[in-house]
């Protein structure tokens, strides 16, 4: 497969969205410190096309084992925040903040992969509302104090989250989506000056008890050496974690659908659908993904007009979320084979399916390394040019397991190996500004809907330009051109959920900005 979904389906992207947003901020005058209250509310309505794996007989015509679902999306949210900051007699700055954040996101449309209670018969898609609501109540305290060579920031935070995920049918199914959990954390960060203007050591750590994954520590150490005013060398070692979302670890997810004969060649072809499905293992707790990174860099001011910034990094990932087959082989991980064969015997259309069952695991491992080089050049006070190149290589540990391979290969190929960027900004007389931005990314590929043919996003070069005229202090007129080199190209793909790859089309628009 190659190219974007829009190219594959011919479905016109419908990015029409209506946004409503309002906010209010109050800052009453106080003698002891600064107090502020903030409230924000938003509602965004949009439309999208989601693509799911599907039982063959229920597939969108011309797209076996896939189904397009046009959905309408409503995202809403309300935030209430209070913040108080003050200075102690001993010079410490403190901030106490509390907020309540409520978010909801719901999709509605003709929806379903076919997997469900009717197994081995595919459940026809039906008008379904799915999504979720989440409320966070958060209170945190931070204090910064400078004493001698130490610049210390520390903090404590407590958050209580209640959420409800509504995922009634495949490809995402979660029957009891309600959860409530507490999350508490503390952090400390000490910026230590070992030799003034020459050597700095920064030590810090976050200690967190996450309601989903338990206790995690994220320490980091960083060293800065400035031998002269134009050179800085730095190095850092850190450990970080990522907590999985509840949807990705607790729901039963149909990750792909395909002809069952592809996995079990003993079956007749194009009669039975194999739904490749992951479920959580009963009783298995969630685990955070871990990354240990070693980084280093050199910043050099070559002369008054030219700066160079280079860096190298290496990251070791472990406990990455992935999956494993439930049995020792694909044939031994098939669920519902007897029923599916029986269903096939009586059904005139290919609406029967079996399940290739996997479970979620946190066993994948990978390493990544790379570097970046950036130049910032000011040939004159009117002209600035920035160029950069970044290299990234990700190498995972391959086990041969169907689910593990899918996750590891996707991790390896989803990010571009090479990225180039060149930007120029020129200010002409009379308040006219010309911005040019060219960038090139190498190829990426993404496993979606089936496990054998990744969707490839070809390497692309894009050029954006902006010509702006500051007419007076209040009015700015601008002409913006995007993606001037191609008619269209794909830049990214969203998987889980898999929506259209958004093709970036050549576009030209005019803006007027009036400040008053």
């Amino acid at each position, binding site marked *: 497969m190659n190219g974007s979904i829009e190219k594959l389906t011919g479905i016109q992207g419908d990015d029409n969205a209506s946004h409503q947003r309002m906010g209010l901020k109050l800052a009453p005058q106080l003698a002891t410190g600064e107090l502020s209250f903030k409230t924000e509310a938003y509602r965004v309505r949009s439309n999208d096309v989601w693509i799911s794996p599907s039982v063959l007989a229920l597939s969108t015509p011309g797209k076996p084992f896939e189904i397009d679902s046009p959905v309408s999306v409503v995202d809403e949210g309300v935030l209430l925040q209070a913040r108080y900051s003050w200075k102690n007699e001993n010079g410490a700055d403190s901030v106490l903040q509390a907020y309540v954040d409520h978010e909801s996101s719901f999709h509605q449309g003709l929806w379903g992969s076919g997997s469900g209670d009717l197994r081995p018969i595919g459940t026809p898609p039906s008008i379904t509302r799915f999504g979720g609501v989440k409320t966070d109540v958060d209170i945190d305290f931070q204090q910064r104090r400078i004493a001698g060579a130490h610049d210390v920031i520390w903090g404590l935070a407590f958050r209580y989250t209640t959420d409800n995920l509504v995922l009634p049918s495949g490809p995402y199914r979660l029957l009891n989506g309600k959860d409530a959990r507490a999350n508490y954390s503390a952090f400390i960060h000490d910026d230590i000056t070992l030799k003034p203007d020459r050597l700095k050591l920064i030590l810090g750590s976050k200690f967190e008890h996450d309601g989903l994954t338990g206790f995690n520590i994220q320490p980091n150490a960083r060293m800065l050496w400035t031998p002269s005013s134009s050179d800085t060398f730095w190095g850092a070692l850190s450990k970080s974690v990522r907590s999985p979302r509840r949807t990705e670890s607790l729901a039963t997810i149909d990750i792909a659908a395909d002809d069952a004969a592809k996995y079990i060649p*003993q079956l007749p072809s194009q009669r039975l659908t194999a739904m490749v499905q992951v479920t959580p293992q009963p009783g298995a707790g969630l685990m955070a993904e871990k990354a240990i990174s070693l980084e280093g860099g050199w910043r050099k001011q070559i002369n008054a007009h030219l700066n160079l910034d280079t860096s190298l990094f290496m990251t070791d990932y472990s406990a990455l979320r992935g999956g494993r087959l439930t049995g020792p082989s694909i044939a031994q991980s098939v669920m519902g084979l007897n029923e599916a064969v*029986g269903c096939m015997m009586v059904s005139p259309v290919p609406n029967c399916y079996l399940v290739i069952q996997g479970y979620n695991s946190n066993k994948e491992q990978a390493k990544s390394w790379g570097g970046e080089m950036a130049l910032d050049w000011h040939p004159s006070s009117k002209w600035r040019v920035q160029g950069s190149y970044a290299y990234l290589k990700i190498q995972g540990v391959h086990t041969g397991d169907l689910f593990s391979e899918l996750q590891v290969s996707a991790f390896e190929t989803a990010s571009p190996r090479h990225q180039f960027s060149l930007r120029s900004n020129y200010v002409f007389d009379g308040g006219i500004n010309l911005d040019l931005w060219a960038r090139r990314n190498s190829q990426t590929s993404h496993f979606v809907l089936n496990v054998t043919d990744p969707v490839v996003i070809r390497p692309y070069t894009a050029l954006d330009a902006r010509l702006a005229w500051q007419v007076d202090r209040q009015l700015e007129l601008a002409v913006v051109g995007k993606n001037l080199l191609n008619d269209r190209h794909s830049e990214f793909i969203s998987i889980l959920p898999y929506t259209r790859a958004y093709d970036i089309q050549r576009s030209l628009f005019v803006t007027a900005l009036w400040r008053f």
Partner: protein
Amino acid sequence: MFIFPLRQILLLVFIALLSKQSWAQSANSVAEYRVKAAYIYNFAKYVDWPGDEAKPFRVCTAGKDDLGGALAALDRRTAQGREIQVRRDVALEQLRDCQIAFVGDTDSKLLNQVLKQLSGSPVLVVSDLRQAADLGAHILLQATDDRVEFDVNLAIMQKVNLKASSQMLKLARSTKPLKP
């Protein structure tokens, strides 16, 4: 110099052969056994047996070959509203009490005796032995280029009042008796 006693060498060779065999019996044959067992399960559902019995539904193997254990997985499932009982290595004279008799290709020498013993009885004889259809088995399960297909010997089934559903016959590779 150290010399292995002959017996030990033979034992080693035997172990090597055994493990090679279990390698060969890996993914592919597991799938083949599971698919064949799935077909047998569905023959139990989509073939009509004469009489109306409340007794358990017996799936028996005439020899030791039970499709690598895949048939045992059908034990206690239901077919025709009756609980399935899987019996392995059933004596010839007791096969008459079974609804399905399976003769695997590693028990090939049993097939003739089984057919003779069951002649005239409403017991569905299923085999994955290549020459089974010629010898008079009711259903031949066969793997060609990996794919498992089945032939139904309708004429012989009719003689003992076994009726296959029309949908099941649509899926069969052939439904005519190979030997008139």
